[in-house]
């Protein structure tokens, strides 16, 4: 359970109430809206916060500081301690020597032990700060854009490790990230911060849709992994009575419930099922809504009782005669589907 209620004092007067399930919570908001300020208050670093309630109890900043770890946008480290000394002292102080070795390996900071913080690169500094934050075995971990200096590859390798770790340590996470993809991959829930407070707090997809306006839309599909062949890199997923094909480097065990992400822009429509095409997924569906937008026509379909969106051009809409109640086939490649579930 992530449950807090914070009122910040002027100059950034802001009241933020969030109540969400345990796990990873994405915090969305435009630049300068107050995300970092809110996280600092939650970490007990804003003595001017007018109100601090966590789990429905008033808490002092000092009490918060003990249980909450923050990795800020530009993490502060102790300039006169080496990385090794940071790790050693924090581990000693929180009886976490065992955890230290694991974190060092997972975050790739082994080679940095002898360096002082001013010698670290931006990405290295963040990884060190992340390791230190986890070493404290916090109840709540606050991450303020921790991945922005990592390239896509390293990021994707890091995510499952992080999720496993936080699950094991039993700590909830609030993640601020400007890459929607990071949020979508890691979080089950999001909160949207606006200048007058938290305007949304709940499930991931409605949140993302709300936050991004109609600019980009995506669907989350729920299914169950079937057993596939690892060599092909293709995972068959039971989706209602049908099978979807998902490209993924590692296959989850059969029977795992999986969450799939599909962007409306990656879905094409056809009036009938096709032969002789490389598109692996063809789903017959019923059109439940057609919305004309600046960027195209958003077609909302229902298939196996789940909602899937496709965006096509106005020309195609006219040509195929798409309208509510009509029947279409949804076409998308196995590579268009991403597996959100980390395992």
């Amino acid at each position: 359970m992530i449950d807090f209620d914070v009122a910040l004092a002027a100059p950034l007067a802001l009241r933020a109430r969030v109540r969400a399930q345990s796990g990873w919570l994405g915090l969305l908001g435009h630049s300068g809206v107050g995300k970092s300020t809110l996280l600092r208050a939650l970490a007990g670093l804003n003595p001017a916060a007018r109100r601090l309630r966590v789990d429905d109890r008033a808490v002092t900043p000092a009490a918060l500081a003990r249980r909450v770890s923050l990795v800020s946008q530009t993490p502060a480290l102790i300039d006169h301690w080496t990385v090794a000394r940071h790790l050693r002292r924090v581990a000693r102080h929180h009886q976490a020597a065992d955890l230290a070795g694991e974190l060092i390996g997972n975050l790739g900071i082994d080679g940095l032990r002898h360096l002082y913080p001013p010698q670290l690169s931006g990405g290295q500094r963040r990884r060190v700060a992340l390791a230190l934050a986890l070493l404290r075995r916090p109840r709540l971990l606050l991450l303020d854009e921790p991945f922005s200096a990592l390239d896509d590859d390293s990021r994707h390798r890091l995510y499952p490790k992080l999720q496993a770790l936080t699950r094991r340590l039993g700590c909830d996470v609030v993640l601020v990230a400007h890459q929607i993809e990071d949020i979508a991959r890691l979080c089950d829930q999001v909160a949207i911060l606006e200048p007058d407070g938290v305007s949304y707090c709940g499930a991931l997809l409605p949140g993302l849709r709300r936050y991004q306006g109609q600019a980009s839309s995506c669907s989350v599909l729920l299914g169950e992994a079937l057993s596939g062949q690892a060599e092909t890199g293709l995972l068959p997923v039971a989706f209602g009575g049908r099978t979807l094909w998902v490209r993924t480097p590692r296959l989850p065990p059969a029977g795992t419930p999986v969450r799939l992400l599909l962007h409306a822009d990656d879905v094409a429509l056809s009036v009938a099922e096709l032969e002789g095409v490389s598109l692996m997924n063809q789903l017959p569906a019923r059109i439940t809504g057609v919305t004309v937008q600046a960027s195209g026509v958003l077609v909302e379909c229902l298939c196996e009782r789940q909602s899937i969106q496709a965006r096509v051009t106005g020309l195609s809409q006219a040509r195929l005669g798409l309208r509510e109640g009509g029947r279409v086939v949804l076409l998308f490649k196995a590579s268009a589907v991403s597996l959100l579930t980390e395992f």
Partner: protein
Amino acid sequence: MPWLASGDAQALLLTVKLAATTTVILVALCLPLAWLLVRRDPRGRGLIQSLVMLPLVLPPTVLGYYLLVAFSPAHPPGSWLARLFDQQLAFSFSGILIGSLIYSLPFAFRPLEAALQQRGPALDEAGRVLGFPAWYRFLFIVIPGIWPALVSAALLCFAHTLGEFGVVLMIGGNIPGETRVLSVALFEHVEQMNYQAANRLALTMMAMAVVTVLLSGHRHDRF
């Protein structure tokens, strides 16, 4: 003929003892006090800052005179102090130590406060984010973080106590082995127009200072 007169060698030892004790006590005292002022930022902060500067404003002899009055066992502050220390404060090592402490206070306090004000809060927050308790942050993060300022304050204190003279002369009374420090001895040599001894003593003191400063400088370049 030895380089220093025998009395001067004794004075040298006493001086180093006085200067070192003063420096250690002052730094140990001013660090927490200044940190408290910076952290809590109490209402009376400006007043405390200026009170701390007062010893500097009075000519040392005059300050010494007032201290002498305060230490006098005839009336209250002095009689209490005498009971507390179990001896008369004036004309004893404890007495000149207290005088030195008061007179050198601004040199320790001010630079430390300025440094803590500029770098302290950020250092403290870094430690807080790592989950260390307040005392630990102060000892192992904030203090090493302002090291150059600390060295500079300690040096000012030490050097100033070496050369300090008016207060010590007034409340110490120039008693060999007890309160006769180098500066007093040097003053006497000059006063007696004993120029060779004076020059030698001055050179010795300056050499001590140069060595102290050079030694203290080593840590500067760690980063």
